[in-house]
């Protein structure tokens, strides 16, 4: 059983469950695209009049991946953008655990430099620390801890959308992407017409790009921070981030941030006093005035990085992008692309996206199993392992090095 067999499982699933494919709002104005199992190209520029036509198509073709446009078009099936006639687009945010450093990555992720052979476990660097080459081969998996980290990020984004940008929880929904994270969709009338510049402003707001220290109440020379921990928006967020950095800091971290030894010692010796002053109403930062302006700026920059949302800016800025269709299956994992309301996010569990019978087992063989994938802990590092079907499909869908011996 390899990729061909996955197609058979998908086919059977769609035959009985095509109804769980939800058509997007205003389906007639959307473009659809599909990746098929046997061809390595995207079939694009498709459109459907209604949900049942869409479901029939999926049932008939059994795609490996299914996408639709976040944009609305006058002629969604036209071959060029000019002819399509862009009318607007939903506002979409993409959270991908690839970009989030999680401790569980050392249990399931590996990388190897194709240039010099240097290798490591955990989050892969963008270039080889040994030879500097960017040709890096990565073996990456997700586990339930990754999903928890992505959930935290998604909640962070949602909180900003609700509290600061003023959307209501009815205006937005989330989608588990079927693999490494979540998409957040906002389908409110006012956002649809927004151009790329406006969307970029929103992304920059989430990422903290362009944040100007002066507006935070940071003054040169005399180091005075005039921010309260409880304030709304970026000022409060930075204050809380700075508080967390100081609360959890170690000598090693402060040095890495770039503080001088004298300053590191001062912070560590006076930590309690500094923190209790910050907790006062309003917050008092004067205890930090022993720190040079340059070092304080470094501390703030570090705090900003910590509290900034980790969304992929390209997905939000691009108003002509195709995005996964809820209710379909992800061709590399076999997990269901699952639509969730804001209130459902917190209780989401990776096994909610399993669609294949966990009573069926697959015996897989590998020279090098990860410690853990999804919610499954491996009992050995290599050889044969008997895993439930959803895990089996994820293993062979996502890696060429794992083969199936038997299904039982």
């Amino acid at each position, binding site marked *: 059983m390899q990729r061909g067999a996955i197609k058979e499982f998908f086919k059977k699933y769609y035959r009985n469950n095509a109804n769980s494919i939800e058509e997007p709002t205003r389906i007639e104005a959307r473009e659809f695209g599909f990746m098929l199992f046997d061809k390595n190209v995207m079939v694009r520029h498709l459109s459907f009049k209604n949900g049942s036509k869409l479901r029939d198509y999926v049932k008939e073709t059994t795609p490996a991946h299914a996408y639709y446009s976040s944009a609305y078009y006058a002629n969604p099936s036209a071959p*060029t*953008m*000019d002819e399509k006639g862009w009318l607007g687009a939903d506002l979409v945010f993409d959270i991908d655990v690839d970009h989030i450093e999680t401790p569980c990555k050392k249990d399931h992720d590996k990388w190897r430099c194709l240039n010099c052979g240097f290798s490591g476990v955990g989050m892969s660097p963008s270039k080889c620390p040994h030879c500097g080459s*960017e*040709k890096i081969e990565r073996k990456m998996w997700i586990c339930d801890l990754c999903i928890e980290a992505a959930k935290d990020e998604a909640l962070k984004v949602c909180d900003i959308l609700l*509290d*600061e*940008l*003023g*959307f209501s929880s009815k205006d937005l929904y989330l989608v588990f992407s079927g693999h490494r994270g979540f998409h957040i969709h906002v389908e409110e009338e*006012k*956002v649809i017409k*927004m*151009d*790329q*510049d*406006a969307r*970029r*402003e*929103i*992304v*920059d*707001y989430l*990422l*903290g*790009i*362009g*944040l*100007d220290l002066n*507006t935070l109440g940071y003054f040169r020379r005399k180091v005075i921070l005039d921010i309260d921990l409880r304030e*709304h*928006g*970026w*000022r409060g967020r930075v204050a809380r981030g700075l508080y967390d950095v100081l609360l959890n800091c170690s000598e090693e971290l402060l040095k890495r941030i770039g503080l001088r030894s004298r300053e590191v010692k001062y912070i560590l010796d006076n930590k309690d006093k500094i923190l209790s002053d910050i907790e006062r109403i309003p917050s008092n930062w004067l205890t930090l005035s022993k720190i040079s302006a340059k070092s304080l700026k470094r501390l703030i920059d570090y705090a900003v990085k910590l509290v900034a949302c980790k969304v992929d*800016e*390209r997905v939000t*800025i691009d108003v002509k992008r195709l995005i996964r269709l809820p209710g379909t299956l992800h061709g590399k994992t076999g997990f269901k692309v699952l639509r969730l309301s804001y209130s459902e996010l917190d209780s989401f569990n990776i096994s909610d996206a399993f669609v294949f019978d966990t009573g069926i087992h697959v015996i897989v063989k590998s020279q090098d199993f990860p410690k853990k994938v999804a919610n499954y802990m491996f009992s050995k590092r290599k050889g044969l392992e008997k895993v439930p079907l959803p895990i089996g499909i994820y293993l062979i869908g996502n890696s060429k090095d794992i083969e199936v011996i038997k299904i039982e």
Partner: protein
Amino acid sequence: MISLSNESKPLKFYDLVKYPFTKEALEFFKSKDLTLKDLETDVGKRILKRSYERIHEAISQRKVTTNLSEDSEIEILSFPITLLLLSLLENKSLIYRYAVAESKRVGELLKEEDLLKLVWIARHTFEWSVRLVNEELSEGSWVLIHFIDYISHIPQSSLEWKLVNRRLAKGYVLIRKSELARVIEEAVKKYIVRKCNERLPVIDVPNTVIVFIEKISREWSKYSNDFKNVRAVLGSAQEDVYPPCIRKILNELRSGKNLPHAARFALATFLLNIGMSVDEVVNLFKASPDFNERIARYQVEHLAGLRGSRVKYSPYKCSNMRSLGLCVDLNGEVCKGIHHPLQYYSRMIGGVIRAKRSD
């Protein structure tokens, strides 16, 4: 004082002369039911002449002056006719030049108005959600504007306007009256650009109009010819006038770094836009570790508008370069006031051209 909740109209007919883009002014224009034929009458010719003056002043002085000595009706009607002339000319850079000049005129006048008039225009012409912080205040007071209306109309070149540096609660941004005037100015600019780029139905243009169009076209080509041969003038020194972000990408490419897609796009489109040929650009990309001549040529030709949609692509503007992590001057120290890499280039070579002329 006028209470806004009564929705009594703060705009007088005289205001329409100053603000011919408002809903009220356009309704007045529509009520006149002008046809192209009417432009050949004496009144029509006066309107056309005033429209021509608006564009002429934008070309030669980069500004438009409100003409209060002109008949008010002519002054109001000349605005939509100006937009008509520009759409017939179909020249994007001229449209932009005019939009900037005309909106600047509006912005300066708006700053002198009272807050209620601004709020009225924001609500009625642009349909924004704007709230007064305190119904009783007018001078020097603040307003709340919905963040989407705000971010859709902010100047792109400076950090202070960015949403991230604003106080934002429950979807509303707090701004000053003078800032509201600036945001409306930006909205007027965008309105003009959008209107002038709309495709017109095929129409029979009367000779009187054609005469003006040709006149404008001649004037504009005189101003826009200067930059054409600058690459030849610069010779080997030309990379010194590239913006720092592009220079960095170029250096990385030459050092054999495997560039991400966005960096390749930014570099290739920049070079094509300053007049490099497809061959020259493809040659540069030979340094890339994954270079494949066939694919590279295809992609560069696509960006140059020789394939597919026939659209010639422009590099990302600065704000997008920033978001994509390609900007190297985040504090705007080298690129003060610049909002597009090509703008940096044209500013730099402007200096070169002037130096050359004085040789």
